[in-house]
């Protein structure tokens, strides 16, 4: 092993590699413990979740998921016995705690709101971003640097500072607590990321392709459509996922500007309570369902991650 890498005098020694590997693996394992704990808690029963010492081995149960999707009312044992046989696992579990399912909880509508708002705003931001990025990349736009900086500067505002006038504006326009209002707002926030990232991606596509297409008789617009867009697909997809993740994770605007019909999952999940405080298994279940899409995206994105988180400043 050490002989095969000996061509480089500066390659780290096998020993230093081993130590480095051990430290990194230890850090990685410790840092994902909180996430594993979320996953484990989602399969605990409420008593197991608050046991002391914390239970690492436990009998898995989907009670947390049952509680996440339903609302329940406490009933007397006589009343519960008078009911017919339980209609499902959740029904059965809930009855054991002297409760009956009263109806669906708000989790599903909130989760759907998150989907609609995240995908809607991502589509708009990437659409606008692609056009602007192409404009800035290929044409001499007067004051281009100032405009690009202006687009970015909107990110310097603390979200609460933006939320104050937006709150008043939306109240006047009737956009408070609507999906449209949230889509517009998230689009405005995300478009700065989209423009900066996509400009980097489009800058990397050689102009020769378009010039060639235009010499062949395409108009500029056709050349953009037929040559630039297909080559920018990877960049557009990566940008879209970054926008999606931002909109999906966003909390401050959602918490201040939505309260009911348009509320997304992040402000909703912390409000899940059971009897006597936070229902941690249900919260963990909601958190798990909420986090899984992001985990998938992170793995898909790992090659573009650096670029995305630095607004294209570091490309590697």
């Amino acid at each position, binding site marked *: 092993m050490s002989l095969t890498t000996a061509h480089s005098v*500066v390659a780290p020694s096998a020993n230093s590699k081993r130590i480095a590997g051990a430290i990194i693996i230890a850090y990685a394992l410790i840092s994902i413990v909180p996430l594993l704990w979320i996953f484990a808690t989602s399969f605990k029963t409420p008593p197991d979740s608050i046991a002391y010492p914390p239970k690492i081995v436990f009998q898995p149960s989907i009670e947390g998921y049952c509680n996440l999707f339903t609302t329940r009312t406490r009933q007397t044992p006589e009343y519960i016995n008078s009911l017919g046989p339980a209609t499902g696992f959740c029904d059965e579990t809930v009855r054991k705690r002297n409760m009956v399912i009263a109806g669906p909880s708000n989790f599903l509508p909130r989760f759907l709101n998150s989907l609609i708002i995240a995908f809607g705003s991502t589509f708009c931001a990437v659409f606008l971003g692609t056009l602007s990025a192409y404009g800035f990349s290929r044409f001499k736009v007067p004051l281009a640097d100032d405009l690009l900086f202006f687009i970015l500067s909107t990110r310097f505002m*603390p979200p609460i500072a933006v939320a*104050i006038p937006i709150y008043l504006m939306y109240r006047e326009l009737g956009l408070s607590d609507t999906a449209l209002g949230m889509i517009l707002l998230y689009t*405005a926030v995300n478009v700065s990321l989209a423009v900066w990232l996509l400009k980097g991606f489009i800058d990397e596509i050689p102009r020769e392709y378009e010039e060639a297409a235009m010499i062949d008789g395409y108009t500029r617009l056709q050349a953009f459509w037929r040559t630039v867009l297909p080559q920018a697909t990877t960049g557009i997809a990566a940008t879209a996922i970054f926008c999606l993740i931002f909109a999906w994770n966003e909390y401050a605007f959602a918490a201040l500007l939505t309260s009911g019909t348009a509320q997304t999952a992040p402000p909703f999940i912390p409000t899940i309570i059971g009897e006597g405080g936070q229902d941690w298994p249900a919260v963990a279940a909601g958190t798990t369902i909420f986090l899984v899409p992001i985990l998938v995206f992170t793995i898909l994105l790992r090659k573009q991650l650096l670029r995305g988180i630095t607004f294209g400043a570091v490309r590697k």
Partner: protein
Amino acid sequence: MLNRTAENVARATPEPLARKVRGISDKGLAWLFISPTILLLLAINIFPLFWAIYLSFTNFRANRPNEVVKNLGFANYQRILGDQDIWIAMQTTAHFVFWTILLQTLIGFTLAWLIDRKFRGHAFWTTLILVPMMLSPAVVGNFWRFLYEPQIGLFSYVISFVSGIPPTSIQMLSNVSLAPWSIIIVDTWMWTPYVMLICLAGLRSIPEYIYEAAEVDRASNWRQFWSITLPMALPFIMLAVLFRGIENFKMFDMVNLLTGGGPGSTTEVASITLKRQAFESWRTGYSSAFAIILFVAVFGLANIYVKALNKVKQR
């Protein structure tokens, strides 16, 4: 390289060839492409910003929209700059920003430096380390409240197990001196990977021949680290600090869910004060003035910092 060639070709192409007569002119197309974005930002960012500037000179309260709005001049600004609570909030923010950035930079750079050894399986473990930063700070921050619960919380349990302190007395969120650290720990856990990733890019940008030359000159490993590795990775480290600094100066979601600014106001960072003033006390004019001050502060500090960053880059 390829880009430059392409640009040269484009420049050498005669104008009439590059510009097609039919269809929209390039200039028209450029504006057609850019203006929707600019219009959206004008409507959702700039118009509200000017509205906030206007409000900051008034005593407007959003919960009493029908009351007569009085023009106060600079009174709101004067009151903020003389307000003890605002200064305490700024100090809390500074404390939070300082410690999170220090810890994240130290740990993040060390991790990157170790990963750069390219041990077997490093790509997999790097991806695993990156996971926390992609998650929602609000949703994950909310769950950390459970980990911090005295006794039943995993964090408190592990700390008491290791240190021998009785588990009931580890009150991370309700103890005045521990609460600021509880938010620093979560932020460091979440965002160290971010700094690590940028530092890793910096380390990988250092060409190997520089180390080879140093080796020929018999520079010690220690010497190589201080005169090659660190200076050449510095622009990247500074970039990571810039991004984290701006983000943590604005920090709201994670702190709001973990401590809500409490106990008392020990973890009340600027954004929490802003929220309390604007959406709980409904002092819209006053909080707008505070928002403008914060915006100018971030913008000004970031500008000065970027100038320093460019100087380091040019060296």
